[in-house]
């Protein structure tokens, strides 16, 4: 992975920069000893590491603004960091960068049930937002699978999704407002407890911008009342095509499940050996969950099972109790862990049009043979967001590179059939160099012009999202125009 050369001027000014940061933060909030900065050398994409110049842990918007103002003046790149759970290398430092972590900003600032919003500092974890409102039977809808650990800051940066977004949408659909600090230290308020915006939808632009436009310190989030209940049904098929057709027919029938999860045979076998959830040994397995009162659930599951039966399932198991529901979800929830028991794995995140599902699975199977690497597929079928898990051996020389090449081929396939490189993890550094398969140079330039507006010196979260050659060419051209 190519990263830009660190700025030698910044490296040689380290002592002064650190001293200035110490001047605006609590004593223990500036970390610069090499043995301590190593804790920030990578995120959940552990294949790439680089200790930062320093790491800072501000406690308020004012402190974040003070830090950014100093870094701006000193020309220091800043890498914002939520909980460090990015699978795309979204928080990977460069050697000349300051990591700005929001881990100490975890307060709930306001809970407003009448208006169904909560205001939090963005270091708060996703699950603890729900934790703050569940005694009143409310919840925060986006549920990325890392929700126990991941921070709202990172959710906003990557526009995180989850298993339930078919009904509830992703982060951008549940985010009403932010306080954000620009790279020069300016604090802006976008949105609020009201809906929509006075002018351009800057909030929508910021959500999913991978920490490259500003550092979001506070967020107003939509909270919802929990449904009366939820229950899944498990359906097994002997063919991916048929399972895909079943998903399409359920949607066409007018039912809107909260989740439709899909697992293929390699994944079913791995999870069954690991979690013993009692899954059938079949080609494709669907878990479809619906919500409502008991009678509403019965009615919806009635429609779904009737459709499922028409396609001749090898297994159809409707949950009748909380225990049965937990058992149905058990395997799915342990799928990643189960694959990890077999080997190291890389988790991809492309999205495809649902109708292309059987073709894409068949092609992935063929590529798996060509590359000689195993792959299991588990994904959100209702919205086409795939999560192929490619197995490899990190200790075997060349295996990681082979795995990355296989992954790139799968993502190119996703784009080729009308989908995209990433559905919920973000581009980061991981998919940076594939952006050209989805976007023309002009499409990328349009996005980079947005970066020019928010962060003209390109100091925030550098070397992510856009191929280095493209961003360099763009900045050179802008400089020529300015000159």
């Amino acid at each position, binding site marked *: 992975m190519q990263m830009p050369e660190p700025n030698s001027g910044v490296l040689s000014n380290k002592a002064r920069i650190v001293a200035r940061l110490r001047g605006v933060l609590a004593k223990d909030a500036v970390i610069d000893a090499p043995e301590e900065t190593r804790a920030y050398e990578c995120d959940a994409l552990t294949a790439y590491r680089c200790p930062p110049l320093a790491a800072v842990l501000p406690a308020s918007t004012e402190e974040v603004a003070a830090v950014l103002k100093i870094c701006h003046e000193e020309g220091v790149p800043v890498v914002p960091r939520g909980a460090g759970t990015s699978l795309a290398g979204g928080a990977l430092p460069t050697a000349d960068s300051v990591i700005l972590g929001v881990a100490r900003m975890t307060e709930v600032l306001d809970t407003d049930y009448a208006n169904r919003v909560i205001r939090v500092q963005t270091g708060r974890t996703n699950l603890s937002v729900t934790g703050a409102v569940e005694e009143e039977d409310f919840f925060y809808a986006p549920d990325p699978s890392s929700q126990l650990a991941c921070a709202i800051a990172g959710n906003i940066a990557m526009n995180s999704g989850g298993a339930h977004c078919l009904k509830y949408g*992703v982060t951008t659909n549940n985010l009403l407002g932010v306080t954000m600090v620009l790279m020069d230290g300016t604090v802006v308020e976008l949105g609020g407890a009201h809906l929509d915006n*006075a002018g351009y939808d800057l909030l929508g632009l910021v*959500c999913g911008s991978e920490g490259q436009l500003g550092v979001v310190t506070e967020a107003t989030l939509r909270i919802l009342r929990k449904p009366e209940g939820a229950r899944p049904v498990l359906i097994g098929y002997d063919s991916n095509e048929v399972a895909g057709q079943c998903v*399409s027919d359920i949607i066409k029938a007018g039912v809107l499940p909260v989740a439709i999860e899909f697992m293929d045979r390699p994944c079913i076998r791995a999870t069954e050996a690991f979690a013993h959830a009692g899954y059938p040994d079949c080609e494709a397995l669907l878990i479809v969950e619906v919500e409502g009162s008991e009678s509403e659930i019965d009615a919806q599951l009635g429609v779904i099972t009737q459709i499922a039966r028409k396609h001749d399932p090898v297994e159809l198991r409707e949950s009748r109790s909380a225990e049965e529901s937990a058992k149905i979800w058990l395997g799915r929830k342990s799928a990643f862990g189960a694959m990890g028991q077999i080997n190291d794995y890389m988790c991809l995140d492309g999205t495809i049009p649902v*109708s292309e599902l059987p073709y894409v699975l068949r092609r992935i199977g063929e590529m798996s043979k060509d590359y000689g690497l195993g792959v299991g597929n588990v994904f959100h079928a209702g919205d086409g967001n795939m999560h192929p898990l490619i197995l490899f051996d990190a200790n075997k020389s060349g295996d990681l590179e082979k795995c990355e090449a296989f992954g790139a081929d799968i993502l190119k396939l996703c784009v080729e059939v009308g989908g995209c490189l990433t559905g919920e993890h973000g581009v980061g550094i991981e998919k940076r160099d594939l*952006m050209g398969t989805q976007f023309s140079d002009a499409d990328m330039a*349009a996005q980079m012009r947005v970066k020019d507006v928010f962060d003209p010196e390109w100091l925030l979260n550098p070397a992510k999202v856009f191929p280095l050659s493209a961003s360099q060419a763009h900045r050179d051209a802008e400089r020529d125009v300015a000159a």
Partner: protein
Amino acid sequence: MPSPVDEREVSDAVAGAEGPLRIVGGGTRPVGRPVAGKVLSAKGLSGIELYEPGALTIVAKAGTPLAEIEAALASANQRLPFEPSDMRRLLGRSGEPTIGGVVAANASGPRRIQAGACRDSLIGVRFVDGRGTVLKNGGRVMKNVTGYDLVKLMAGSYGTLGVLTEVAFKVLPGVEAQACVMIHGLSDVAAVAAMSKAFGSPFEVSGAAHSPAGEAGQSVTKLRLEGFADSVAYRAGKLRELLAGIGEITIEDDPDRVKAMWRDLRDVAPFHRREGDVWRISVKPSDGPAIAARAGGEALYDWGGGLVWVLVPAGTDLRARLGAFAGHATLIRASEETRGRMSVFHPEPAPVAALSEGLRRQFDPKGILNPGVMG
């Protein structure tokens, strides 16, 4: 008047423009400051390009009539989640609303409170920027975080950042039944509290509006339920129990009457053919009654109290009356003279305005796309 029929012609028209262009779809939402310029119509870019009911996705050229999209979706019992409004009667316009116009105005109706705005359903755009460059962002899949989200930026930008040529949406299943729970005689404050209570229940309210003028001299608060027939009946009963004691409650379950009721709310029917200016104010719901009181005039509440439509005498400087508040007010209907004189869109704080201006310069460096329409 250039009336391009494909993206290339739009690109040529923009690249070759020697002065300001006034971008129009159906011309049914003349919102914003009046723009002088050569008309560039998107009407020639028409037609549904892809509709996959099983994937809940539709893609259409920007000039496609909204009615054509809605008819295609209805044939597969699906719909646009955000219930786009038809502003023709409010604004005294004829013509055919286009899907691109809906996106340019981020036009969202009563269901916005539950299902999100137009921008929440919009998953892809193609457009021509002010340099004449053809650009795309997003795509045709509903989960997509690849690169920056210019899709959201384009929604509600009133043609000032680019000329839309193609739009893609996530759609939703239609419904079997709908009902309206109506509470009679509530004050504005009590109505907003009742609507909040309903939204705070698990009964999936898909619309909540309050009309102080109401019917027969009594205010009416309306809560809409949609879904399978048994479920709607169950939830209507539950809501009646939940709200018992606060006022007289009736339930309307005739589908045609319920539909007509919400269509009227969506299109602000009570202000049709009435003298005066119409403003649209977005606040958090509990602030609705106070902001309506400050505005004076006649008010209508949607979005559980968070959207306040206000009818005031022509030429009223409503911003002076409202003062500073958390939210925004937009002047939707007024004479050209008034719209030229007042800030139609809510003024942004300086650092935000600087970002907006920076974006405008990047996407339209020559300043030719609907210049000044957003102030």
